[in-house]
């Protein structure tokens, strides 16, 4: 699958062009800071299909003509080959080149909107302001709104990312053993999944006899009785997919399995509640309800958990964090990770989560094998 084909087919440039016409606007400037936060939409990726190295921008005018500007200059050839824009420019001076592109597209900046400028560094924003005279009005929700529903090609990429995540977890079960350090295990999983095509990976992996939370791998030496928490999040062609798993080295205490079952039940309720038309708050309440019924209502807040899931960048982070204050309605085709990860006083932090796609009858897990409490036999 070619990145360029994906973007051409998803038609987000065309959708943005229609938006400009409907709103009687002259143009759109979309920017990326190049940081690739997996919880955020990358507006340049959404409109060009290019994952930029440095700060970058897409300029789109009301006639549908588009230009991608990437830094550093030497990345132009790669970006041009992958971009769905009409033109690609490599530069080491984004502000000056943006000014030139705005001129070429004859944009009236008072009639132009922007996405992502608020994420750029202050000095670069100052240089852009100086170069352009004024910044276009911010419309920071546009990219994530346009991309909130995955295209069939993006869904296929998300399914592939999920497949990679599951293979990565299988590798964890093979490779983890007493005596190795967390970072060695993380290195193996990261490179293993990269070989399968994962261009990025939000991989948290840590162990303890009593976890407070999951964190990035450190120097801890694994040993019998350790509970390994893993949040495995490969990105395949712009689509992150996350699975959350709990693994015990050696036979776990019965209590751990008993508490893990609460999370699995919560996951089941969340999946059932996650149908199109329901709100994110509905899903959150369904998950929290199981945990509350089990007697842990007071633990349904930080620092005992963070959120019950979240959207996945870099295409669109819609529907946002899975929290009970999020009243956004779910739509068929939205993808997010649902994870009733939870600290419980008797077991410590446990993890159980799947990437899901919203359907009319509920949320469907993209993973083939749902989370169970896995055991590494000694």
């Amino acid at each position: 699958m070619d990145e360029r084909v994906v973007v051409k087919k998803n038609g987000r440039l065309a959708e943005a062009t229609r938006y400009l016409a409907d709103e009687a606007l002259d143009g759109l400037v979309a920017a990326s800071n190049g940081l690739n936060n997996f919880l955020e939409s990358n507006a340049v990726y959404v409109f060009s299909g290019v994952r930029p190295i440095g700060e970058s921008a897409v300029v789109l005018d009301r006639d549908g003509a588009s230009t991608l500007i990437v830094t550093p200059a030497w990345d132009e050839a790669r970006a041009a080959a992958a971009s769905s824009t009409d033109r690609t420019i490599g530069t080491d001076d984004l502000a000056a080149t943006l000014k030139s592109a705005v001129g070429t597209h004859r944009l009236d900046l008072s009639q132009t909107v922007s996405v992502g400028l608020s994420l750029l560094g202050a000095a670069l924003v100052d240089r852009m302001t100086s170069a352009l005279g004024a910044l276009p009005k911010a419309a920071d929700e546009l990219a994530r709104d346009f991309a909130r529903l995955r295209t069939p090609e993006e869904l296929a990429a998300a399914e592939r990312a999920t497949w990679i995540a599951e293979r990565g977890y299988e590798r964890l079960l093979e490779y983890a053993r007493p005596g190795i350090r967390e970072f060695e295990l993380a290195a193996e999983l990261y490179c293993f999944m990269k070989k399968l095509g994962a261009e990025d990976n939000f991989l948290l992996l840590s162990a303890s006899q009593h976890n407070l939370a999951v964190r990035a791998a450190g120097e801890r030496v694994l040993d019998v009785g350790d509970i390994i928490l893993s949040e495995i999040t490969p990105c395949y062609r712009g689509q992150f997919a996350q699975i959350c798993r709990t693994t015990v080295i050696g036979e776990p205490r019965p209590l751990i399995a008993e508490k893990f079952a609460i999370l699995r039940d919560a996951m089941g309720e969340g999946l059932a509640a996650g149908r199109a038309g329901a709100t994110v708050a509905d899903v959150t309440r369904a998950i929290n309800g199981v945990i509350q019924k089990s007697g842990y209502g007071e633990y349904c807040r930080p620092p005992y958990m963070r959120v019950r899931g979240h959207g996945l960048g870099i295409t669109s982070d819609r529907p946002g964090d899975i929290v009970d204050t999020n009243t956004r309605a779910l739509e068929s085709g939205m993808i997010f990770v649902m994870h009733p990860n939870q600290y419980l006083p008797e077991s410590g932090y446990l993890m159980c989560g799947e990437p899901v796609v919203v359907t009319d009858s509920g949320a469907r897990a993209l993973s083939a094998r749902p989370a169970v409490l896995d055991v590494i036999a000694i």
Partner: protein
Amino acid sequence: MQTVQPCVTIGSYIWAQDRLPFDEFALRLDALRAAMDRNGWPAVLVYGDVREHAALAFLSSFIPRVRWGMALLPHTGDARLLCAMSTRDLPAMRTLTWIADVRSGMGPEWVNAFDPWLDRFKAEQTQKLGTIGFDIMAPVLYGAVRRSLGERFALQRADDIVAIPSCRMRPRELTMLRASCKLLETAAKTFVDSWRSSHEPETAALDAERAARSRAAQDVRTLVSLDGGRTLVPFQGRFEKCTGPLVGYLAVKVAGYWADLFVTVDDGSATPATRHAEAALDAIIADMRPGARVDALHAKALGALAPYKLHPVLGGSVGHGIGLSLHEGAEFQASADATVVEDGVYALQVGTADAEAGHVLMSAIVRVAAKGADVLVRSKPQAR
């Protein structure tokens, strides 16, 4: 070299007190306090993000693995560190810094963590606070800072006044950087060995990455050429065989310190481009003495490289400082107005892309001693 920024840095992170004990930070903070005295700042705010955090790491040892961190360093009293992490994550964050008071600065936590800390500096007149790293702060966070400060405080840019990190490396820093160079050499050897058996540049780069990560690298970056050295690209996931020489770029980070290297291997006879590039690298290494002007070093390198032009991926530069950041200090460009300093550590880089003479990229990391350059790592010679 710029590379694609990963969404999180995978690797071995902890405040390594055995290698960088608090007394090392105390020396750094003494220098900062002297600057506070000179400028009338009761405190300095030091910001860093996941991509650029040299000053933050230099003063606090904290390296953000996602988003950002900010050290609030008073002239007297206790420091505080804010990070863009949930309260759930704070116990793990506390293992990364000597600062005991680590708070979440995310969302609603901001006003509880930042504003009360400032109260100690209340005065009738507006107070000045020094800032480091605020150039890369996103406007939305800068707005939160400004709202918290109100009229009570004015911000004064301290980046150029304090020069942090120092370009002169102390012995412990040099030890760290030597460790990075050693791991880099291991990764580079793996890169070449893998390519010789597979002729797949991406497989070779991934094998090199695995070698470094499994040996406690905090970060690894790679670029490879899929066209024999004319261009470099980040990970594509194709793992295809490629004809022509192996040309790539490796960077590894150990205990906060970066080392990087260009690798060119052509198992045939050395091309004219390779011979000229090696001569250019030799020439600048020979001239790396305290006080050497970087524009003169640039001219020297280009003279030895002639008639070939500098490879486009080098952006017109033949070197720069390296340490807590991959690029520190002035770029060695034609227009630069800077000199190299004793005990400074620099990455030197040359190469060319010429359809007739060949494509080549090579580099070295050197420490500048009184008598000349101490080469810490260097691309393996091809022409000699």
